[in-house]
Every structure is written in C-alpha cells, then in structure tokens.
C-alpha cells in the first residue's frame, strides 16, 4: 500500500514539503516571522527558548529544533539567531547537516539589525521555495510512515469510540510495516501494567513501569496533586473521574500490537511497530516531541474539541462526541459518533481512519492546516538562568 510523498536526501520520506524558518532563540522570533511572512510554503517555529539554558535542558531544546529541521516533511531550513545566545544559530544549523538538505543561518547582530536580516533571510528563503516547488510527489510505501497518536480534550467518548477506532487504524499501519508513536506518559498512569505486558521484552516492560513511577514521584514531590492538572476540569465535566479512567481510555490509541521500544522525548524511533515516547500529557509539548522524533503525520482524538495543529505536519482530528462534531465542525476531520450508536464497528471506523490518513499523507489538507494552526512548544526540563 502506497501514499504519494516526498523523497529526501538520505532516503527519508515526507508527507509535506515545507521550507522552515527556525529562530534558535526567542529574540530572533520576530525576524523569523518577518522572513516567512506571506511566502507560500514557508513556515516559522514560534520558539520561546534558546538562551540562558544549561545541561540537559539546553540539549533538549537543541535536539527538538534540530529534529524539526531534519523532519522529512521539511525541504530546507533557515535558522535565525540574534548572535549572543547560548544556543547559537550556527550550532543548530550544523547539527542538521547530516540530513543532506539545504540548511542556512543568519544572525541579526552580524547582518546589522532586523530589517536587513529579514531582507537577507527572504532572499535565501525565496531560493529555497523555488527549489521546493520543483519537487514532485512519488509513490511511497505506507511502511515509511511514522504516525504520531494523540488525544486531548478527552471525555467519555474518547475511551468508548475515538481512541479504540484510532487503535484499529494503528494496528493496520503496524500490520503494513509502519511505525506508531504512543506518548503522553502521565496519561498512562493506571494503565501502565497493560502496556508493560505487551512489551517485546521484560526489560522494555520494566522501562514503562519505571517511567510511570518517575512521573508519579515528580507529581508527589511538588507537594501538589496530579488531580489539579489531570484529569482536567473539562475531562471531569465530560464524565472522566480519575487519571486511571482517563489512561485506560487513552491507551486504546496504540492498538493491540507488541510495544517495540521506549524512547526519550524528541528522539527518533529506532524500530518499526508500536513505540512509546516519554512526553508529558500537555498536548503541544507532546506533539512537538513526536514531530522532532520524525513523525510525518498525526492523528488526534478529542471529545470536547481542540484546534491543535503542527507547523510542519498534518494533524487529523477525530471525535466521537456528536455535539462537538456539530459545534466544532471547522476543527474535526473525522466523525466516529456512529461507533457509540452501534451503527459502525470499531474496525470499520479504523479502516475509514486509515484511508483518510493515506489521503492526507498524499496531500489532502486537514482542517487544522486550512486554519493555519501551527502550535509549537518544547517540553522544558530546567530553569532559565
């Protein structure tokens, strides 16, 4: 089974052909926005970090930015720095070199101010865009897809309809030789034993249990209560009582195949099949981590409705809540309310989702793309100094 995608140097395969402008630091965000403004095919990342960071926190920001640049949905990259930041544009650009794609950088202090930087950046970007436009889609096996799965604004319909239906689609992709990322570790609390049981080896299963234990310990160490954040007030209004209940509904997204590996935030999977990426439950932190890990397409289930989209990837929204499908029809791509009414089986809905995923991978725009929804947020793990 094939989709129509873009081939990158080194053999990676994309579903989109974006030219990406990355501010390596928050101060160059304005220039990056100015460079990409009104240029069709160009997007910029609203990065608010990149300075006064140390150790693992700085590494995570760098790895995430580099992961976006090297994501196969990106044709070429322009990194924009200020000049004095501790995550320099040059360092970020150089780390992307192994991808084989064109990567350039500009620095505001060196070029001499914002206006000149925008002018220089736009000249470079227009060249990149002209080259990008000459690239054609070609037939690519779906086994090359890394599908990111996500749920947000969950309610009772998530665990009963949209997540099981997405799980059926996940199983179809794994069967076809592809990769599925399950993440949002905090939303596995109470369901971790079920996932651990499906691990390829006992060591991988233990890793799942250790991750959950770590997040739970961190929540307790704040002196607060995870219930203040998860389940969220909207989850509770939607009938979800506890984090365990939310988690048990949540893990359906990953389908029923063995768990092949556990990877840290913003790292690429090294195996095909179902993988777990360690991310927070925060929707955009999670989405950003999966994109940086090389995912080219995301399927996102929602009960209460959510507008989230990615700067570089299509995000397909699924809901099993009839009222949400009606009220937020400009946000929801696939309606699976018939599953709850017993008029469509979970497997039938899964096949429908898989078909839509293939169409979107081949270029059909999602509602979040049409709305220009470009959410980006790096999972911050340290203080700014």
């Amino acid at each position, binding site marked *: 089974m094939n989709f129509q995608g873009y081939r990158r140097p080194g053999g990676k395969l994309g579903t989109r052909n974006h030219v990406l402008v990355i501010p390596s630091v928050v101060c160059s965000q304005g220039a990056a926005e100015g460079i990409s403004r009104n240029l069709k095919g160009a997007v910029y990342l609203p990065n608010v970090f990149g300075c006064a960071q140390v150790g693992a926190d700085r590494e995570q920001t760098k790895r995430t930015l580099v992961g976006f640049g090297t994501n196969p949905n990106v044709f070429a990259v322009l990194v924009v720095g200020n000049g004095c930041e501790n995550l320099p544009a040059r360092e970020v650009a150089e780390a992307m070199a192994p991808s084989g794609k064109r990567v350039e950088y500009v620095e505001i202090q060196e070029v001499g101010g914002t206006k000149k930087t925008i002018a220089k950046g736009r000249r470079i970007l227009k060249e990149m865009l002209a080259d990008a436009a000459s690239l054609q889609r070609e037939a690519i096996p779906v086994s090359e897809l890394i599908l990111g799965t996500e749920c947000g604004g969950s*309610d*009772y*319909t998530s*665990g*009963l309809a949209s997540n099981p239906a997405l799980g059926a689609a996940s199983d179809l992709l794994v069967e076809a030789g592809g990769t599925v990322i399950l993440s949002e570790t*905090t939303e596995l*609390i*109470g*369901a971790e034993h*079920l996932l651990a049981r499906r691990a390829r080896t006992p060591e991988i299963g233990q890793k799942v249990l250790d991750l959950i234990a770590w*997040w*739970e310990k961190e*929540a*307790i160490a704040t002196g607060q*209560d*995870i*219930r203040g954040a*998860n389940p969220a007030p909207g989850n*509770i209004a*939607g*009938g979800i*009582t*506890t*984090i*365990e*209940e939310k988690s*048990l*509904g949540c893990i359906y997204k990953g389908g029923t195949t063995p768990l092949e590996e556990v990877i840290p935030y913003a790292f690429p999977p090294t195996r095909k099949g179902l993988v777990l990426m360690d991310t927070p439950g925060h929707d955009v932190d999670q989405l950003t981590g999966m994109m940086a890990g090389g995912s080219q397409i995301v399927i996102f289930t929602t009960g209460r409705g959510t507008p989230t989209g990615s700067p570089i990837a299509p995000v397909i929204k699924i809901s099993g809540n009839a009222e949400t499908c009606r009220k937020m029809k400009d946000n929801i791509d696939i309606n699976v309310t018939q599953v*709850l*009414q*017993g*008029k469509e089986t979970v497997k039938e809905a899964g096949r429908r989702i898989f078909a839509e995923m293939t169409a979107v991978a081949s270029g059909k725009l999602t509602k979040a793309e049409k709305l220009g929804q470009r959410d980006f947020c790096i999972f911050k793990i340290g203080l700014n100094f």
Partner: protein
Amino acid sequence: MAGKAKAIVINEKDNVATAIIPLKAGSTVSLEVQGRAGKVKILAAIPMGHKFALREIGQGEDVIKYGEPIGQTTARIARGDHVHVHNVVSHRGRKEGSR
C-alpha cells in the same frame, strides 16, 4: 452494542455503566453485558457520559471500568446512583491519605 442503548458496559467485570444520553432519576435503563440483559433503576440524574453503579459498591471498594480499577469509593454507592468525583478518589500521583 445495541442499537438504541442508553448506557454502555465495556467489560463484564465492570461495576459501573456509562450513560450515552442524559438519564433522569427514577428512570429504568436496560443493559446488555456479554449477551445477558439486565435492568437498573436510576437513583440520581446522570449527565451524558457519566457513570452509574451496576451494583452496590461499598465504601473503600474499587470502581471497575474497562475491566480495571479506576479509583476507590469514599462512601457507599447504591445500585443506580451517580459515580463520579464526589464519591470516588484516585490513589495515583498524590500523597497517600490526602483528599
């Protein structure tokens, strides 16, 4: 799942059902679990998507949904009564003993 079901029981081990339409106090709901039919009289208004008890659940007992524990009751819950944050507590991600 039945064509015009008002509530769903996901796993035969579950001691709660999920209302898929709003249910009125005093109404009776027909349910099907693993092909076996049953009826429950609803004791309190159950908003759409919320849970009610399929049998009496004692104080401190596990609430079971998806065939797994989702929390413990803080009070006895009668068959047909609303099961939610007012009478169920999670024991995960928080200090033991805190309410």
